[in-house]
Structures are given as C-alpha cells and as structure tokens.
C-alpha cells in the first residue's frame, strides 16, 4: 500500500486530501493510474507544473515507488 496526498488547489479540485492504494511502478505510472479515476483527475494530473514529493522529498516522474511510500502531489509553493 502506498499513501497518496493532495494539497491546496489540487486537493480542492479532486475533493480528496489523501487515499491509499496498491501500486508498484514509478511516479509517472501512478499519475496514469490516478487519471483513470475521472475527468477531474485526468485534467489535474496532466498539468505540467504540478510537483511530486516521495517521502517528503521532491521527486521526478521516473522515481520508482515501493510499498509504504508516502507520495504527495501539489502546485508550486507560495509561502514566505
């Protein structure tokens, strides 16, 4: 099981802050799997400026995921 988190504008657009699912593969593959959940998911995950973190470290699309990883998707940050 991996845990997937969504923040800010993404969380709102998907109406989801977190979910758990069985998955093995890389980040790009996870996006494809999630995109099958519906049109909103497909559109949000197709945006080219969304960021991904794996276990709280920024990760690229080709990073492979293992069981119990925490994966997060979020828009560019705007703190400070």
């Amino acid at each position, binding site marked *: 099981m991996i845990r997937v*988190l969504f*923040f*800010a*504008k993404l969380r709102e657009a998907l109406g989801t802050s977190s979910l758990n699912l069985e998955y093995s593969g890389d980040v790009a593959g996870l996006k494809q799997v999630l995109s099958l959940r519906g049109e909103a998911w497909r559109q949000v995950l197709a945006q080219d400026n969304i960021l991904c*973190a794996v276990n*709280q*470290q*920024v990760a690229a699309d080709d990073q492979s995921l293992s069981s119990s990883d925490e994966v*997060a998707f*979020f*828009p*560019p*940050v*705007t*703190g*400070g």
Partner: protein
Amino acid sequence: MFVRVLVQEDDFDVGDELGRLRSENSGAIVQFVGVMRERNEGDVVQSMLLEHYPGMTERSIEAIVSEAAERWSLHGVTVIHRIGELLPGEQIVLVAVSAKHRQAAFAGCEFIMDFLKTRAPFWKKEQLGDGSSRWVDARSSDDDAAQRWQ
C-alpha cells in the same frame, strides 16, 4: 549551532527571538519579517489561509537552513512560519540569522527567504472583499531570486 524551526498558528515576538540569538560571539543579527499586505494584484484581501504539508515543511526548512549555515558559517538561525488564518498587517514569517559579521548574516537570511519561498510546501489562499477566494499563484520573480545563489 543554534537552530529553531517552528510552523505554528500562533504569532511570534521578534524581541524574544532576537534574545535567543544574541551572544558575545555574534556581532551581527539580521531578521526578516514577512507581513500580510492588505492589497494583492490590485484587490483588497480580507484574510488569508495558509495551508502546508506537515512534516515535509519542517524537513525542507531544515535542509535550507543547513545549507545556509554551512555556506556562511552562521552561528544561529530561527525560522518561524505561521499557518491557518491571517489578517492584513499580521506577521507571516520570521527568518533570523546570527553570524560573526554582517555580510554573512545578510546573505544567509536572504538565501533562506529565497528558498523558503520556492521550496517549502506552503500555499496561500486569499479571501477577497467581494466574498470570492483564490489561490495565490507562484511568482517567477521568486524563482529568479533563488536561482541567483547557484
């Protein structure tokens, strides 16, 4: 080295924080305080909601602080970032840095702010005067500011 990183709803007191950094070895302390402005992009903002990614926020700030501390031999760094609802005129963030000399303290403080803006997972949502709300967009000028340290 003294490091203090806090992500909290509560306000902070710059006098207290300065006191924690002051020592007989540090000739310079530079403090940056970010304040919520009433106007943004030409609109009146009534309040702001600050969301973050608990855990990753603290880790990313600590990584930025470590990098700055090593690069400029800083003596102490305090970063306090508020979350939750904020009103115009309220303090949002404090970055305070102590060092032997002022050049290091200025550079370290500015470096930490520039990377806090572009790497720490915080997101601002503005509540406008007309009842609508909007997520603040990231600014390319912040990316440029971080880029110059490479």
